[in-house]
């Protein structure tokens, strides 16, 4: 899954065309960064460090929300109007980064956020933020099911299809349709997250 193939010859119908770069489903160069981030999150939770927890939650959440909104509301609609070949070209370069980036940001944001809320007393039923946090759990829960159950499997399946010597455009189009639809839904859910989190921060 993480191996790097050689240059592969592409084929349209029966006519060979120019070679295209092999696709690395999981970019190996990014793994040490992911490991460092996960270690930092674990250390933040273990040490219960206010600054580190706040950094992980705010930086991770800001990036997660911004990327989801940008991809869902800007990139997704553009992608939906491209030809299958153009979508595939974009996907080959874009998705491997997302395979590493998004789960890392989500883990960083949620794990640090829960610990931060506990430390600041926001989880207490007496806190005015308790209700808002429960609503945020629900919003995140919906996003998690869409992202993990629909979006990520489709993204990875597209990457495997792209690695084949003769990728099937119909398979890629079918899977990318999921991406375009679900990315938009997640983008809208992220607007709800922004509203909730700014309410929590100002109460």
């Amino acid at each position, binding site marked *: *899954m*993480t191996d790097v193939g050689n240059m*592969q*010859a*592409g*084929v*349209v*119908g029966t006519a060979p*065309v*120019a070679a*295209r770069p092999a696709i690395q489903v*999981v970019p190996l160069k990014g793994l040490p960064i992911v490991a460092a981030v*996960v270690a930092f999150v*674990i250390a933040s*939770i*273990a040490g*219960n460090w206010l600054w580190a927890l706040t950094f992980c939650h705010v930086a991770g959440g800001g990036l997660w929300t911004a990327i989801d909104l940008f991809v869902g509301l800007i990139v997704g609609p553009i992608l939906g109007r491209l030809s*299958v*070949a*153009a*979508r*595939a*070209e974009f996907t*080959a370069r874009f998705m491997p980064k997302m395979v590493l980036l998004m*789960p890392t940001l989500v*883990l960083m944001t*949620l*794990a640090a956020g*829960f*610990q931060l809320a*506990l430390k600041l007393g926001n*989880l*207490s*039923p007496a806190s005015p933020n308790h209700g808002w946090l*429960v609503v945020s*759990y*629900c919003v995140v*829960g919906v996003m*998690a*099911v869409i992202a*993990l*159950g*629909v979006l*990520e*499997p*489709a993204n*990875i*399946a597209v990457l*495997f*299809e*792209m690695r084949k010597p*003769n*990728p*099937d*455009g*119909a*398979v*890629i189009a*079918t*899977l990318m349709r999921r991406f375009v639809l679900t990315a938009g839904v997640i983008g809208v859910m992220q607007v709800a997250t922004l509203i909730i989190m700014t309410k929590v921060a100002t109460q």
Partner: protein
Amino acid sequence: MSGVSAAAPAPVLSRRFPPVAGLTTVSLGLVVIGGILMASYAPRRPPLGVPVAITVVSAALLLAGGYLTSRLRPFAWDRFFLVFWWALLAYVISAGVIGFAFVKDHVRGAPLAAVLVMLVIYALDVPLIIAFTVARYSSPAGHAGSLPDVSQPA
């Protein structure tokens, strides 16, 4: 992408499968709901009746998904396991970090056991969905020609 074939639908696309991804996604959704119920009570001890019932149904759906997958013939098992093991590694780490937070926050006894079971289901659900989705669009190794409809039990 100049190397993408735009030919007629391939057998892998037209082939029908049992609803493994659907069942497992519902299982994942139930675990998420159970987790939200548990987390909404933190730092108090949550009532366990509903979360445990949800977890049992979720586990049953996961097992059903695994069973249906295990009966698929022909199926791209090499591709399935390649993806499954790597995804399992990633999601065991993810579940481990979440579990660590609960242990660190002094969740103990039955609530901790319920959370851990949910995390195990989560760590199995996601790799199963990803691996099944990848393998269903792959041609089984050594298989040529049309592929049978496997959406109904034999």
